[in-house]
């Protein structure tokens, strides 16, 4: 039954593709920021060390990275609450027609997962490409650092996916556990 839930989820994600645009953009922007900061961190630190600011800059980079990571988590949460609200009625219909809670939750987790994955990958790709273009054309004097980029991409994808799953699972579980009449009449 969970498998059926997942295939319903994939179907609904395909059909609701337009609704994914905003979450993907938000996740991509957050991922872009994170990858940018981490990929340039290496060379920024080296330059700073030559000017005598090494430790301070290192700490500043850590601070900014943590903040950007948190921004990423929160914006994913904002998007997923929006989606769950939109689909409350759908959850009510599924419940009213007797579909069990587990497949409903599985079905509704597919869309945020896909949005987070696609968004994080798109954002990372743009950041990586942008970094190379900027340093190749000489616009930026700092060049991207492979190790930092890899860490950045892994973090961006990992954090986005985990955040979206956690923030959608709870409200969906709650909505699917209520008597369906509440979800049906709450509109949206």
């Amino acid at each position: 039954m969970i498998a059926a839930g997942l295939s319903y989820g994939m179907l609904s994600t395909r059909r609701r593709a337009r609704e994914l645009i905003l979450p993907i953009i938000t996740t991509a922007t957050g991922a872009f920021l994170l990858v940018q900061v981490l990929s340039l961190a290496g060379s920024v630190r080296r330059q700073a060390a030559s000017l005598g600011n090494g430790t301070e800059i290192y700490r500043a980079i850590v601070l900014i990275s943590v903040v950007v990571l948190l921004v990423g988590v929160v914006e994913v949460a904002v998007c997923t609450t929006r989606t769950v609200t939109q689909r409350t009625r759908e959850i009510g219909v599924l419940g009213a027609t007797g579909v069990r809670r587990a497949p409903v939750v599985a079905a509704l987790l597919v869309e945020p997962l896909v949005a987070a994955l696609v968004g994080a990958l798109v954002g990372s790709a743009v950041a990586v490409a942008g970094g190379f273009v900027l340093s190749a054309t000489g616009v930026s004097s700092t060049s991207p650092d492979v190790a930092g980029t890899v860490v950045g991409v892994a973090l961006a994808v990992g954090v986005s996916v985990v955040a979206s799953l956690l923030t959608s699972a709870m409200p969906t579980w709650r909505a699917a556990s209520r008597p369906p009449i509440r979800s049906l009449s709450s509109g949206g």
Partner: protein
Amino acid sequence: MTSLIEAGEGAAAPRTDEPVVRAEHVWKLHQLGDEVVKALVDATLTVLPGEFACLMGPSGSGKSTLLNMIGGLDRPTKGTVFIDGTDTATLSESQFAALRHDTVGFIFQSYNLIPFLSAVENVELPLMFEPVNRGALRQRALDLLDLVGLSHRANHQPAKLSGGEQQRTAIARSLIGQPRLVLADEPTANLDQRTGAIVVRLLRDLCSSMSVTVVASTHDPLVAEEASRVLRMQDGRIVSNTNQSHQPEA
């Protein structure tokens, strides 16, 4: 559009004595701000198989609330509801869902179709998550759409269907699981008179030829005309219970 189901007189399935639904001294109370609203007051009701029962009353009379109790969409504050012999108080939410799934089909005033699924997919929805044969399911869904006269609209999404067509799709959906009981909450409220009449006749024919029991809540007198039993409600109470069927009471 004429009815596609042959409704012969006396073609109803033989009645058994076991009621499909029994509600005994059911109360439903809500908190609204500082007030307590009595949606249902000491409602007792029995519905026998094959009946087309109609709950009639003005807004706020409790008819939809009672319907939701019977259908397992909500739980009573006090009192017992038996669906197909099972006391609903003993069921967890998950078991309740299972019961709804196997025994009850729903039709709502606002259709409640899933917007991104086509008509035939909406009809399949209740069984979409079961390990059934996809091909057989699709065929059964198409047959049901044919029954309600919508074969030509099978692949349209709800946005492209008229109100009457959406409601008929919802009726087809309510039948896919071969339920014993079909509950209709104000089925004709969003429809014009002509379309409403078609829907009501469809419901009546379901009773007589598909051995399904239908309970509808409405304030549309047209529905009451076609029903075999009319229960009038006011202020949360059942005030009258009239048998209108052409058959003698069991």
